[in-house]
């Protein structure tokens, strides 16, 4: 893609040459697409929305969040559709506050994250609060591998939230009493499905908006409310050897939110795109619908986005002003 991006800036002669060589025209804009469903839907809505209203050619490309940020910084990527905070506070500080190479849309979607359980787990097995996870007698019912110790899924290995969940588990003390599992979201969610189908207790990392709240009766575990003074997070990228020992967070996540991010260079090159992105105002309900449509109803992200665009002409109009 570096080649394509160079092309975009190098004038007609190079474009013609590369086209002749069969590479094709480069897109005007690259939207990074994360691997979770609402991010996939919104990346495609941004693509088709901008193509329809601003007449630009937009490419959606799947990549991890940190790669997207590096691309926003270098100019290889223009948009990240869903930047979660506080998960990415340190990344936002680096690129938005310090390097000023990335800007955040002023519109925020409110979100939550923490630990969840099936209703059965809270009502029948008495696991209602994170403090209950420190009780080996209670958590033994979460055992799935026969060693007598319960397991808790804390997210996918690649997620920015996962090391923070490990920090929280250590800070609260339940890292000692339950085994923390990291694995792809599909495995975690299928385990919730199987637990719900057999009335078996299960505790897992959860975030909303998310379709699991529409599929099953899910309850968030209670915990001490967020206290920024107690929230000391060092991410593995910042200190690969000692991030866990240097961190402490024995409190709930801060009220979370996510925003669209775009490259400062993009806003200078295409101010109408920056304006459009800054006007996008998805609601939490819309994000849950996106998640459910892609994950549960198996809708194709591109096809879903095109339908969404067709149904929401008024929103597109408002975003284009």
């Amino acid at each position: 893609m570096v080649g394509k991006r160079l092309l975009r800036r190098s004038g007609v002669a190079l474009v013609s040459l590369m086209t002749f060589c069969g590479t094709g025209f480069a897109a005007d804009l690259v939207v990074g697409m994360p691997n979770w469903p609402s991010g996939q839907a919104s990346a495609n809505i941004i693509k088709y929305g901008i193509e329809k209203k601003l007449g630009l050619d937009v490419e959606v490309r799947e990549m991890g969040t940190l790669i997207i940020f590096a691309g926003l910084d270098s100019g290889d990527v223009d948009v990240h559709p869903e930047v979660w905070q506080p998960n990415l506070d340190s990344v936002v500080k680096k690129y938005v506050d310090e390097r000023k190479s990335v800007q955040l849309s002023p519109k925020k979607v409110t979100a939550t994250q923490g630990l969840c359980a099936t209703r059965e787990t809270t009502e029948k097995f008495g696991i209602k609060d994170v403090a209950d996870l420190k009780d080996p007698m209670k958590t033994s019912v979460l055992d799935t591998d026969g060693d007598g110790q319960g397991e808790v899924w804390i997210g996918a290995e690649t997620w920015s939230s996962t090391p923070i969940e490990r920090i929280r588990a250590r800070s609260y003390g339940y890292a000692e009493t339950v085994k923390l599992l990291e694995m792809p979201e599909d495995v975690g969610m299928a385990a919730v499905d199987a637990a719900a189908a057999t009335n078996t207790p299960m505790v897992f990392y959860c975030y909303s908006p998310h379709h699991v709240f529409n599929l099953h009766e899910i309850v968030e575990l209670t915990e001490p409310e967020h206290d920024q003074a107690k929230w000391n997070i060092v991410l593995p990228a910042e200190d690969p050897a000692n991030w866990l020992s240097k961190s402490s967070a024995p409190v709930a996540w801060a009220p979370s939110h996510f925003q669209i991010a775009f490259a400062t260079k993009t806003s200078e090159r295409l101010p109408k795109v920056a304006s459009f992105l800054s006007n996008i105002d998805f609601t939490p309900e819309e994000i849950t619908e996106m998640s459910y449509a892609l994950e549960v109803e198996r809708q194709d992200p591109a096809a879903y986005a095109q339908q969404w665009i067709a149904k929401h002409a008024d929103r597109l109009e408002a975003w284009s002003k």
Partner: protein
Amino acid sequence: MAFLSQSRGRAFGMKMAACLALGVAVFATLAYAAGTQIFDPKTRKWVEYDRKKARSYYAAHQQVPEAFRRQIVKFRTAEKPGTIIIDGNQHFLYLVQPGFTAIRYGIGVGRDGFGWAGIVKVGRTAEWPTWTPPAEMVARDPNARKWAGGQPGGPDNPLGARALYLYQGDQDTIYRIHGTPEPWTIGLDVSSGCIRMNNDDVTDLHSRVAVGAKVIVLMQGASLYKGV
């Protein structure tokens, strides 16, 4: 559902539960006595379901306890129909169906569980597959020695009527879902790593599953999952 099932007393002591079917070495294990419990609705108690009980139950009923029989169950999931979800802990294999239902089959799993968790796919399938015992088994077991070159498929073959070979990308994982000539072992932790089903069930599953189908292996054994 007359019987529920749960697993207990199993611990993982090896890096990977290797599967007899492919002739891969089975490593030494520190496993405790494997065991399953089933819920008896008459006494309302969890009772041990071990090899002896399983044999006598099968002899008396000519089938496994109800929990482990093939049945359609309510199963709300985001996974699409045709996906297989394996819950080794509860000894169930789900084949996702439309309308938030699944066909649930009883399974027997390895003495050490499945040994891993993750997402794989059905890479290929076989009817009445040949079984080749691992070299170690050939060396120690005279009964296996005669099949060192491969036991042809048939009613006495340990792989039973059908085998589904699990792949990660284009790579064979060495794990299989297969049939068994010992149907009373369904619900137990007895094999050397693979997922076994009775021959009727594996034949039914085989008839419904397409090569390429997604297979999700749940967290039982996930302590061995990379990164944990």
